[in-house]
């Protein structure tokens, strides 16, 4: 059986959806954050697939940049989360709701 690009795209979409679901369902901020990373990397899979089908390198280049950006987000995100954790000793996103209305 030949695996066509459609399958990769489907996988990418499913991974993205799992990421979205994780963001909505999980309460631990770090897990939420990991789910966002999952979304970004799901998109990377689409980029690579499209690069293959389009026969151009742009998609691969984009994937590189996405990885860099994702890494930078890790740094910033962890910084913020650790700072909050040190004040509250909880990383549940539901505990963070002083500002509302």
């Amino acid at each position, binding site marked *: 059986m030949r695996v066509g690009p459609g399958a990769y*795209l489907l996988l990418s979409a499913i991974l*993205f959806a799992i*990421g979205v679901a994780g*963001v909505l369902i999980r309460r631990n*901020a770090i897990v*939420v*954050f990991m789910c*966002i990373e999952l*979304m*970004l990397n*799901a*998109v990377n899979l*689409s*980029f690579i*697939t*499209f690069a293959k*089908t*389009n*026969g*151009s*390198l*742009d*998609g691969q*280049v*984009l994937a590189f*940049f*996405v990885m860099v*950006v994702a890494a*930078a*987000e890790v740094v*910033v*995100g962890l*910084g*913020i*989360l650790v*700072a*909050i954790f040190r*004040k*509250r000793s909880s990383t549940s*996103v539901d505990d*963070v*709701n*002083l*500002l*509302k*209305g």
Partner: protein
Amino acid sequence: MHPLAQATTQPLPLPEVDWRAIAPELALAVAGVVLLLVVAFWPRAGRGVLAGLTLAGLAAAAALTVWNWDLERVAFEGAVSLDGITRYARAVLLAVGALATLMVAQGDSREGEPDDSPPEVFPLLLFALLGMVLLAAASDLLVVFIALEILSLSLYVMAGETRRLAAQEAAMKYFLLGAFSSAFLLYGIALCYGATGSTNLLEIADATGDPTADGTLLLAGVGLLAVGFLFKVSAVPFHMWTPDVYQGTPTPVAAFMAAATKVAGFAVFLRVFAGALGGLVVSWRPVIAGAAVLTMLVGAALAVVQTDLKRMLAYSSISHAGYLLVGVAAAATVPAGVSASMFYLLTYAFMVMGAFMVVQYVSRLGPPDDDAIGERSSLEDYRGLARRHPWAAGLLAVFMLALTGIPPLSGFWAKYYVFLAGIEAGLTWLVVVAVISSVISAFFYLRVLVVAYLQEPVGDPGAETAPGRTPALGVALGLAGLLTVAIGLAPEALIAAARSAERILG
């Protein structure tokens, strides 16, 4: 053969590096790096020194922008384009950056108190500005994404720069939701790339007319791009982070976000939607128009019930995003939509920054801030402001009236041109909604003035602390007030400049 393998056998065509085209961006980057090193090697450097260096970097970037003023070309093989939008956005952003630098330099320290915000805020401000000007110039979705991330990452850190609980909460919300939405944007880029075979806006523009391109994929991609941009400009239903973040974050940063992010966000919005995707206007216009309606009405209605000025300004900025979306919806078919939106951004940036400056000033008067709610900006604190601080109250009046859109001030012209463009594009119904929304919004802007001018101060006025010396903030307030009044009295030159932005290069 695999494309990568192919490349190894042939000499690569070297890309042309057009240094001049991105000179202002380079200046910002260099200034940012220099400041980073200053902070690293001289941690005790005073805020005045850092602010001076930042302003010097901004001045250099501004000089280079002027030098490049007449340059119109596409550089870096279509990744960056220099046109009216680019230079107009550059000018506005650098001015906003300068005002924000002054606000940050003032800080939140009172007499005899240490300053809470770290010195890194200055290089971060420069990096955020770098992302913004790059975003306004980007004509490749790759550059759009990178620029967006540069500005977002800098802002996430800036939002949480102080140790206050509220600031950290704001930073976390902004960060998680921002990252979430940029994943959607990225997926949109991927789908557009898959459908058209390119990330370059010029090539995407060509492909939208191509019947063989995958329409469904492209439309889905366009929708997700819209999600990413609508989030950045805080349109409904992607607005929910805005009030929480503006309220929790330090006031100078909130002002910077409210003004500069909107300018950059709408610049790229116009370039991508009105420029590259102009061929699909029939498809996306209802989306933008619908978002505009929701944004205007929800923003105005929720602002009415706020009791905190910063939060109210956040909702007001949401409803202003709605008016701007009217301009975007019009822009694809009516060039005046582009110039009207750019002019709106210019006026809006100064009005809203001015309003936040007054907030910053007043927050220094009361007792120290509550850790949980951020800087003090409750409407209660403004009671009888006119009696105690007539200048601050007078400026507050100028900014509130301008935001309302009362004729002699700049805000009126901004609304006027956008509405005119909307009517010209056949979106009369949308303009009617906009007028209704601005009627509602007059209510809460004027309410602030009623509180400041008509009510007696609560508590013992003697207990009020002195604001301390506020030279930087004073200069910034004066500039913002002057600009708001001056643009209102003589909008013509700036409108003419905006007109030159009507031709979008890819």
